């Protein structure tokens, strides 16, 4: 894995691999597809790293934008397919997680699922991608004000759905 403009691709991969996978898997809810899309996103970064412009945001935000597009394209392809052979992610709690913390996480998980897709996506991009407001705006293709508004609304809904548990 090479370097470009002082940025170590391998370091980026190590730092972001799990987060990208988590974000993509949360969108796709398919472990196999999440693995493919994660690999595809990093391969695209590797191929197109000469086009990366640091003035337009961090490399991490650029990577999440690529991963988002790849995941949504996968969703489009999946929508066109008549049969689904997804490999669902096993998100059932482990037996030793059945404590108060695990309960709280189950509530959050349920609250996330109840969110509209757009709200869920922006929460994932913020919490998992750790993107700034301007980076969020660039990734989802809107203005920074709109991105902030959407994030604020999504967090409010998420907190409301979680109730007092959180």
């Amino acid at each position, binding site marked *: *894995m*090479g370097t470009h403009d002082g940025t170590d*691709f391998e370091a980026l*991969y190590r730092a972001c*691999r*799990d987060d990208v*996978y*988590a*974000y993509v*898997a*949360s*969108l*796709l809810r398919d*472990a196999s597809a*999440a*693995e493919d899309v*994660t*690999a595809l996103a*990093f*391969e695209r970064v*590797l*191929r197109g790293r000469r086009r990366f412009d640091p003035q337009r945001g961090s490399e991490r935000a650029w990577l999440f934008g690529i991963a988002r*597009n790849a995941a*949504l*394209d996968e*969703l*489009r392809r999946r*929508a066109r397919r008549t049969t689904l052979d997804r490999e669902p*992610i096993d*998100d059932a709690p482990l037996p030793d997680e059945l404590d108060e913390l695990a309960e*709280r*996480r189950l*509530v*959050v*998980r349920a609250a*996330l699922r109840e969110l509209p*897709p*757009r709200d869920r*996506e922006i*929460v*994932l991009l*913020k*919490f*998992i991608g*750790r993107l*700034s*407001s301007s980076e969020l705006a660039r990734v989802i*293709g809107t203005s920074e004000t709109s991105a*902030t508004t959407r*994030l*604020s*609304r999504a*967090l*409010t809904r*998420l*907190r409301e759905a*979680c109730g007092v548990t*959180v």
Partner: protein
Amino acid sequence: MSPSELEALDRILSGEPLEPDELELELAALVASVRAHAPAPDDETALRLDERIAAAGTRRRRRPTRRPNRRWWGAGAVTAVAGLIAAAIVLGGGSTGGASRTETGSAAFAPTNAPSVAATPAVTPAPSAPTPSPPAGPAPANRLQQRTATLTLATRASSLGSVANQIIADSEQLGAIVQSSNVAQQGRASLATFTLDAPSGSLSELIARLSGLAQVQSLTTNTQDITDAYGAATDRLAASRRERDALFAALARATTSNQTQSLKDQIDALTGRIAADERAVATLRSDSRTASVQITLQPTNGSAAAPPHPGRLRRAVDTAGDVLSVMAAAAIVALAVIGPLALLALIAWGATRVGRRRARDRALERA
């Protein structure tokens, strides 16, 4: 959510120490729950990802030369096609205005004499004729020729005065006499006319040199053989002289006053006729030695006047100008072809982007 909450969220996500604030603690718990809920790749998945990315990196290193982007190939192909179309249009249409301009621009005569002829008809080059015939060379031995030339030149209105001065200078340098000249400079209505008497032997060189001063619009040369007229005039003069000599002899033999007076009257009349014959012979001889040249200098439309000095440099400049003008014409046509195509490509590109974004949004809504 207030800006302060968003700032607190950013601090939490960046791992900064938390404030002992209930809101921040709640947000931190929410972030931790969401992140803990997020699927993580298991060891096998992580290993497969590592291998795939490592393999991708290896493939990239084995292929150091970048493959040209297909979009650039497409743009290059469009440009090439447009260039070919432009070249075809320009070259196909070059037989009208372009060719005519080129020909007049190079219509300078070499100062070499053409093969001599006894008499040549008037030569008036058509506007599309590339090289008007140069005037005939010197007369053959024992032949007398009267030569005239009418030359129409064109130059930029702004340089008409300087070209007019150069015409006079070059003419005088070649021994020509400016019988009359009239230069009126009034912009596009400027006009200069000259009447020259030039030595017949240097007429070709004079025409060649003057042709290099400006564009040759037309050239008419006329060569008339006056050998017979000259012979007749000299014969008539000789006969008159012989007749006068005879009259002088008769006068010497006259015995009466009437005879003497009659002979004197005849001699006087004959003397007048001899003088006229001598003038005619002198005129014919002069006509054979000098050529009359009428020059008209008029303004062009201002774009392609010839440079003031003839020669290789001028021809090179003309050729370079022709090449540049053809290239400019080709570029204009290419732009005319590429412009709409580029606009269509831009619209298609934008529509594709918008369409793809909407399709992704729809896919997200269905997720």
